[in-house]
């Protein structure tokens, strides 16, 4: 009987299937990835039993923070070659007689929600320090004298009538402010919109009624 040979070399493991699997998963995640866009402000949304999911694209997001600061965000649409954000900013610039450089338009396209008067927009786009930039959000004006939110929504919907509106309010926001935003939406004939909420389960019983 021959001796059992002990291999001097460490055993080699065939890694090909593992690598195959890794790459498959990797490709899947790359293709399905939708990045979390950095939010300008942390919002603690209220709870509801609604389990309708928010549309991913063609969404206007109006955020009302805890301090009643109103933010606006609009996406570039499914077809990014349409450059919706650029067009909307362009329309706003025309409305308020401001000029933006092509670089500023490009930069604006890649940014997310903002909450400042249009006059401050240029500084916000060009500010490099993220902390200073975040401190610039002091709310989009929506008074009857200077209703910029109205125009943001109007121009966004001009370029793409499919835009849906999601109103993302903080639990601690004042309803008065949210009501103003809703009024602006209704001024734009947006009567159907979504309130962003967290899902919560509720058990209801008819006992002891």
């Amino acid at each position, binding site marked *: 009987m021959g001796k059992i040979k002990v291999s001097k070399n460490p055993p080699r493991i065939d890694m090909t299937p593992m690598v195959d699997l890794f790459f498959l998963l990797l490709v899947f995640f790359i293709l399905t990835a939708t990045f979390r866009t950095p939010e300008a402000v942390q919002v603690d949304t209220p709870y509801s039993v609604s389990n309708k999911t928010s549309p991913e694209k063609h969404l206007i997001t109006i955020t009302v923070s805890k301090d009643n600061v109103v933010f606006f965000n609009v996406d570039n649409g499914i077809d990014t070659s349409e450059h919706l954000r650029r067009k909307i900013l362009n329309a706003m610039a025309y409305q308020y007689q401001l000029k933006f450089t092509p670089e500023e338009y490009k930069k604006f396209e890649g940014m997310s929600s903002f909450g400042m008067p249009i006059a401050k927009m240029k500084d916000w786009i060009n500010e490099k320090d993220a902390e200073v930039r975040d401190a610039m959000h002091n709310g989009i004006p929506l008074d009857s004298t200077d209703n910029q939110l109205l125009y943001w929504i109007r121009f966004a919907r001009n370029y793409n009538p499919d835009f849906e509106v999601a109103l993302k309010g903080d639990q601690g926001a004042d*309803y008065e402010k949210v009501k103003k935003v809703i009024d602006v939406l209704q001024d734009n004939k947006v009567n159907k919109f979504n309130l962003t909420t967290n899902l919560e389960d509720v058990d209801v019983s008819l006992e002891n*009624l």
Partner: protein
Amino acid sequence: MAEIIQNEGGKQKGKKRSKRHSTHIDMTPMVDLACLLLTFFMLTTAFSKAKVMEIVLPERDENPQEIKDKPQVDSARALNIILIGNDKVLWYNGLANPAKPPLPKMHLTDFSDDGIRRVLLARNKELFTKIEQMNQDVITGKIEMPRDSIDSNRKRFMRADKKGPVVLIKASENVKYKNVVDILDEMAISNIALYALIDINDVEKKMVADYLAANPSAAN
């Protein structure tokens, strides 16, 4: 690993043969990288999509003269809910008409399970049981129905309902947004067919002030 492969190649004595194993590629760095990227993408992918609650508001009246022809709320079905902040609500039945005293009695409650939900369910029992029965039948498999028609059936029940309350939700000043969503949520939970979010009127403002004056503890 690369070294191991070389060692193996060296085993062949003397003769110069083309190496059989020369096509082995060391894949470790590639695997490392793939692993790293995979982890990164898995962590950054936003899996849980945001949930939303859809709300539909009535269209604004373009010319106020048409209001005269609008159907009025049946006072037997009307249920008024006034949000007064601090997770407290006041409610009363019927319509408050100063021309026809006495004014309806106000009741204080909150958003707990035994709070406003109880009031709503008691008034909306018939419709609620009907819809709940349908949901149960679908879950237990008694009736088979695609998701879409569950929803459309629910809406059909709601339209056919002639007994449930017409809930008028009013928010007084300094109410937090949370309470407004809470009360809209209660409408969804109790399957209320008809409800509207409207502005508080002067009569009700006075009623709230009177109530709070009579019950000072309610304000906190």
